[in-house]
Every structure is written in C-alpha cells, then in structure tokens.
C-alpha cells in the first residue's frame, strides 16, 4: 500500500500550479500599463463595438437547435473509438453500433415529427 510520502509529488504539483496562477495574477498587475477609456472598460470589450443590451429574450428555438446539435455531435464522438477498433470488435461491435445508431435515428424521427426543427411556426 502507498505511504504518505508517495503523495509528495502531487502536493508539489498543486503548490506549483497554485503558485503560478497567483504569481501571474500579481505580476501582470505590477508590470502592465493602465489605460482607461470608455470602450476599454465596457463589459464585452473584444474589439468589436457592442450594440444594445445582452439581456433580451432569445427565441427558445435557438436553444433547441443547439441542444439537438450537441446530441448528434456526441453521437459522432462515439464513432471515433469504434472506427479505431473496427477490426478488433468484429461483428458484435458492428451490431452494437447499429443498435446505437438505430436509437439515435428513432430519436431523430421523434424530433422531426415533433416539429422541433421547423424554424417558422
């Protein structure tokens, strides 16, 4: 079993990580020039001039589309490990993937039938 000494590297790593963050935060404040202007101090300063208020209601369809995108994106992520192990997994793996895709297809059909992807409604 492990003793307390084995965890010393972990402690050192933790100290280094924390120390780096803290020292960078302090040093940037000391070294950096201070320029203030109206644009510089605005909330969403990123080079492009901000327009209007960020807090206005957004159509829920944006969220719906975004969530659906994430779902099918995750589906694709599962294909990568399968593609790498395609040969080793043989027929059983293929069947498992077909089942997996079939479930997603059913979900997709449901989404279509429900009209979640119809933009103008």
């Amino acid at each position, binding site marked *: *079993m*492990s003793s307390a000494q084995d965890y010393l590297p972990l402690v050192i790593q933790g100290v280094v990580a924390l120390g780096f963050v803290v020292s960078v935060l302090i040093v940037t404040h000391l070294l950096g020039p201070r320029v203030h202007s109206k644009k510089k101090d605005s909330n969403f300063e990123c080079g492009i001039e901000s327009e209007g208020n960020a807090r206005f209601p957004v159509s829920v369809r944006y969220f719906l589309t975004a969530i659906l995108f994430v779902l099918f994106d995750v589906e694709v992520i599962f294909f990568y490990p399968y593609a790498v192990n395609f040969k080793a997994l043989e027929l059983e793996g293929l069947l498992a993937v077909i089942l997996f895709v079939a479930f997603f297809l*059913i979900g997709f*059909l*449901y989404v279509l*039938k429900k009209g979640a992807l119809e933009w103008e409604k």
Partner: protein
Amino acid sequence: MVALIVIFISGLLSLFLAFAKKPWLVLLTASAGLIAGGISLFTQFYYQYDFIHYEGLKFDGFAVAFGLIAILFTLLVVLTGYSSFKDKPQHTGDYIALLLFSLTGALCMLSFTDMFMFFLGLEILSIPIYVMAGSNKDDVRSSEASLKYFMTGAFATGVLLFGIAWIYGGTASFKLDEITAFIYNAEGTHSSLIYIGLLMILSAFLFKVGAAPFHFWSPDVYDGSPHIVTGFMAAVVKLGAFGAFMKIFSVTFAGLHDFWAPALSVLAILTMFVGNLSALKQIRFKRLLAYSSITHVGYALLTIIVQSPDSAFNLWAYIFSYGFSTIGLITVAIIIHDEEDRIEAFRGLVRRNPFTGFVAILGLLSLAGVPPLMGFFGKFLVFSEAITQYPWLVAIAIINSGIGIFYYLRMVILVLQKEDDDKPKTPRHKVPVLQMIVLAICALALLFGGNMLIF
C-alpha cells in the same frame, strides 16, 4: 432483462403513438407494456430463465420483488394521471413515456451488479423526473422545482461519481462481489480511500432518498411539481433509491457496518425530527406530503442500519405500504384540484364525495400507522426487527410516530368536518373512472394488504 426491454419499448411506442392524437391509445400501450413487463419479470424469475443475459444486471429475488411493486406503482400513477395528461394531447405521450423510462432506470437500480450499471440506472431514473418536474410549463413554481431538482441532483451525482472513483482506488474493482470480497478479506487493513468513497456514496444516497441534512430540495420540488410527478417521486423514485441503497450498504459494504452504522443512525434520528417538526405547520398539501415522506425515510433507514436477513423484506413491506398511501392521497388531491393546493380544501370531503373521503382517511391513517391498515404492519415489521439491536433508536422512532399522528389526525378531522356555513359550498367533485379504479385498489390494499405482509 426482458422486462426491462419490454417496458422500454412500450415507452418508445407511446412516444410515437401520441402523434396519432389519440390519448387512450397511448394509455393502452403503456398499461399493456407495464403489465407485460411485470409478467415477464415474474416468469423469468419463476423459471430461472432469461432470454437475454447481461453480466451487469442480475434479476434475483430482491430485484424481482422490488421491481414488481415499482411496476405496479407506475401503473397506478399512469392511470391516475391520465385525466390530467390528456388535457394536453400534444404531450400525453411524452409524459407517459418519460415515466416509463424512469421506471426502467429504477429497474436497473434494483438489479445492478457493478457500479457502471448503478450509475446509469440512477441517471436514467433521475433525468426523466427532472423533465417531468417542470412539465407544468405555465407554472413558475414547476419550472423552479425542475431547475432546483436538476441543479442539486447533478451535484449529488457528481459526489456519487467521485465516491465511486475513491472506492475503485481502494479496491481496484467496480464489481460489487469483488468489492465485497476485498473488504471481507482485508478486514481492518484496507486503505482509507474506501472510507472516503463510502461517505461520499452515502451522502449521495441520502440526497436521493431525501434524508436530513440533504433534504432541502424535497419540499420545494414536491410542492412545485405537478401532483402526479410528486406521487411518482414519492413512490417509485424513492423505491429505486432505497433498493440500491440496501444493495450497496447492507450487502456490499456490510463488512464496514461498524463504520457507517453510527453515522446513519444519527442521520436517521435527525431525519425523523426534521420531517415531523417541519410538517406540523404546513398549510399546503404537497409540502406536508414532502415532510411526511422525509419522516418515513427516517423510519425506512432503520432497515438499512439493522443488519438482519429480514431487512430486505421489511424495507419492501414498508415501501409497499407507503407507496399505496401516497398514491391514494395524491389521487384524492388531483380529484379535489385546488389551485393553491391548500390542506383546507380537504374540509368536508367525506360529505361531498364519501368514497374519495374514505380513501383519504385510509391513506392518512395508514401513514400515521394506525393498526388495521397496511402502514401499521410496515412500521411494525421495521420496529420489531430493530428493537433487539437498537432499542434507543426504536424508542425515538416511536416518539416520532406519536408526533406524526398529530398532523395526520388533524387532516382526518378536516376531511370529516362540515364545511363552514357562511362560505359558499364547494360542489361535488367529479371522479373519472380510472381514478376511481386507482382509489379502489389503494383502499383494498390499505385495508387488507397488511394482513398479507405478516401471514
């Protein structure tokens, strides 16, 4: 395994049949699926034969006994909720399907043999309920309930996963039998990783069953969710969580009983007092039910604290009796249909709708633990098993039962009372046939089920 697939497919079918805009078709599919699931669960246990075998799930006697009542409760909940589901025809299928999907999660949680299936089961159980808690979209409190439940639930899941990781670090295994064997063989010499993992898993479980001090979500969520979801959470979700709790703590971590039993005893006492004392002042019915359920969790925890071969049966009997009372009461509350869900709306129920009022009284008295009813036998089994090992714990539990009788009886009196003469009379409530059937089943079970528990 077949039962799981049958229920899942009937859930999928009800999703798609809902597009036909015929709510009764969805109800029929779901009920048929549930009944078929129950039958296949029973037959595969009876003949000891399963078509599809998967090592992560084992449907032993424990899983089948708990699974059958989970299916029964879901069926009752679906039947009683049908009248409110069909008010929104475009969502009927979604509601019923989500309940069925949640049930498959509960079945996974009752039959897992490794930590993966346990975690998956917990998620499959919870996620549909997060959605269902917010299904009343016009109501702000429903959305609030959904968000609160989701946020706190996700946090508890995180703690649970971290705990599983610590357990893996300590025992080098995810399989329950291997963890059991490891703890048994390495008596006293195992690393402290296991203790940390155990405490994390314990707190996640206490969160899921709603025990103090992890209970803060439950009054708000119970109160905000639609009635039917509250009933489902109190009956089925609690059953799944308790089943898994018992599987992990009374079996897998039995070797560390000396470590977690004192902690759990203290928390059980805390849970009983918090639930009971908070319930005294409630004016909303579902909030009262939430605090009452917290108290009942406290009693049910006794079955896990006490190490005995009968513990599983006692827990089963307790949840069985508790579920019937809750579903009966929820059905009554749906029939009364008070906008603000006040307890006051129960006043004079027995004079307006004699049978509904009768079932309400039965449910309340059963929760209080009054003898001829099922709740008494559930409590009796739990307490009589605990009294040899933990007499002081039973003494505190009995004091709490005494406190509980106060607010249950106050409601019983309310149901029996006459309505005020100066206020306009509430008209007689209409009771749909399906809810009548559910009420009748609950009444029969509450009246005669208790004797069957201790034959």
